[in-house]
């Protein structure tokens, strides 16, 4: 059972991560970032552990975590596709690229495909505005993309 295994790994990591952060409130965001870095998302259990560690309510921790675009509350797909929707990308067809990927893998931004292969995100701006439109797949930045090139990129990932 993959899910059980994942929770176990999470438990082991968590104690280690919590140890590296102090108990004052200003550790909250770095702590959440650290956990997400290891676990790929923030599980309900993680939120609860963080709340205990900092002496905050879970409500308070969720309140902060949901405010920021970086945090996810569901496991992402094996390949994370992020499409830039910055101004430069927008005027050079970034929306077209996002629509094409969305059609290709059959999910809308913010979702993970049912087979767990892909998750799709729209990002406000990567700051690579000189090479629009920009697509980031698993931390590799691809510039000067077109709908067709992105579709091919995804086919190669499959």
């Amino acid at each position, binding site marked *: 059972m993959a899910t059980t295994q994942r929770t176990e790994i999470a438990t082991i990591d968590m104690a280690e991560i919590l140890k590296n952060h102090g108990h004052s409130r200003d*550790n909250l965001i770095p702590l959440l970032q650290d956990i997400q870095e290891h676990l790929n998302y923030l599980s309900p259990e993680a939120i609860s552990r963080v709340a205990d560690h900092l002496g905050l309510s879970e409500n308070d921790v969720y309140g902060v975590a949901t405010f920021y675009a970086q945090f996810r509350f569901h496991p992402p797909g094996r390949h994370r596709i992020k499409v830039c*929707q910055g101004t430069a990308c927008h005027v050079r067809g970034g929306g077209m690229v996002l629509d094409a990927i969305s059609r290709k893998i059959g999910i809308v931004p913010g979702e993970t495909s049912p087979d767990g292969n892909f998750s799709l995100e729209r990002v406000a701006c990567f*700051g690579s505005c000189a090479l629009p439109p920009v697509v980031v797949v698993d931390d590799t930045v691809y510039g000067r993309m077109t709908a067709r090139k992105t579709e091919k990129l995804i086919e190669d990932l499959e």
Partner: protein
Amino acid sequence: MSFAEIQQKAGRSWDRFQSGETPRVLVGAATCGRAAGAMEVMRAFQQGCAADTTLTPIEIHEVGCLGMCYAEPLIEIRGPAGDRVLYESVTPAMVPDLIQIHLGQGRPVAEHALCRMLPQEHSDNGEHIPGFTDLPMIRHQLRIVVRNCGFIDPTDIDHYIARGGYSGIVRAMELGPEATIEEIKLSGLRGRGGAGFPTGLKWSFARKASGNPKYVICNADEGDPGAFMDRSVLESDPHAVLEGLLIAGYAIGANHGYVYCRAEYPLALERLRTGIAQMRANGLLGEDILGSGFGFDVTIKMGAGAFVCGEETSLMQSIEGRRGMPRPRPPFPAHAGLFGKPTNINNVETLAAVSAILEKSGAWYAGIGTEKSKGTKTFSLAGKITRTGLIEVPMGISLRTIIEDIGGGVLDGKGFKAVQTGGPSGGCVPAKHYDLPVDYEHLAQVGSIMGSGGMIVIDKESCMVDVAKYFLGFTENESCGKCVPCRMGTQHLLRLLTAIADGQADENDLETIRMIGDTMKKASLCGLGQTAPNPALTTLDAFMDEYLVHIRDHRCPAGVCKALISFAIDPKSCTGCMACAKVCPVEAITGSKKQPHVVDQQTCIRCGACRQACKFGAVLVE
């Protein structure tokens, strides 16, 4: 080690790097270069050089961004004869030639060369390669903030020190805090984060404020879509910024600094971490910096993806571990900032200018620019422009010089329509102001702002309603929701602009846009809400005709707004190459080979892929 000894050591390391003893390859490996494939090219050089036994050992270094992003990947090669040539748009396939001919035989490969790095070096063997400073993109620039970007290895503190780095903090310590602030006042430097508040004055408020401890913060949360100056400087020359932060801390009497940098900039974060470790190793950070008795430390805080956190009071909330929501001012951060203590916040570019000003003097900086806008400003050129990239120019230069001479004009000669400056808080400057001098005052006169320095060039194929709708979509999404004018205002403006783009609005809606916009400007809590209506208001002023055509005729003249357009294929120019049919995601295009194709309007989703794919201009927008 004394600073003089540190400088000597750095000088030796820099001389070795600069000398022609070892042939070398410099790879422009900032994010833009990487996105264009710089790392693949670097691997090709590593493998190719290792495999060629006839070559003397070659040094391969990563450097930052020269700002000529349109020509990425950029590779500089110094051959055995000492020629330093910059090659543009390098692909792994070109690498064997570059190794064999330039590194092996010492002859530059003219067909791939962009320029020579030093104009006077070595005669051309018949071929003409221009000098770096002769390039049209470089000629009008004055590089202060980006003085080292692309020239030094950003992971080597010695390179920064050898080029004058950290002599600014040494000079500040000789002057003392008060005189350091006077030096910044004399320079006339204004905050480069957007609002343009005099930096020296800001520092003097924080210095005079009572309270302990005090903090300095570097705002590196560059969330403006279309702006990447801060990223580029952090990736290419992190010490210029860190030294500025150190000077700011010394001047106001703070012993602790924060760098708040976006998580979307992983390479910038990595460079900052390396930089801070190197400062510590050289005694430039810690309890007793260079034996002066002044102690300072820096913490990096990674942003978590909220545009509003660029606003100073929100940013401080975020460091404290809260939702990044702004609070009313006063009290100003200078009196009650981070953790309720006196705090000074400056943007990346401001701090990079500070280190140069202390090194060279305030009077020197004040001699550049215009009367009220001193010095230089970096801009990121993007959108429909031929040479995209990062530039630094003296204040007061005209828009025309920036776009035509430096940027090479509008992409594919499609005609200049407007330039959007200042990101979502800014406005669109229409073509009639093409000769406008670019400084704080003149941009404000035409209803726009300097902002952080993003410039998105808009050509005649772009729709201004769509541009305004785009920005409102962004600010509506990024509004923190704390104050009603911003939360409701952005929603309503977006709804109205969407209705116009869909052809379902009437002329009264334009009045409503103005009314909501004015209310938001006056009543919003922070800069995000106060400036969010600007893209709508400035486009309404300058492009009323375009709005009216959408409303009255249900037509989008630029052919962008999906609800108002349809695609058709011109049978006269269609060659039947099938390129459009192949890219159509919904199979709306039919026709046999070498016969004109047809678009089925029922099936077509108006994505525009066919228009992009057609090489013959046969896809028409109606």
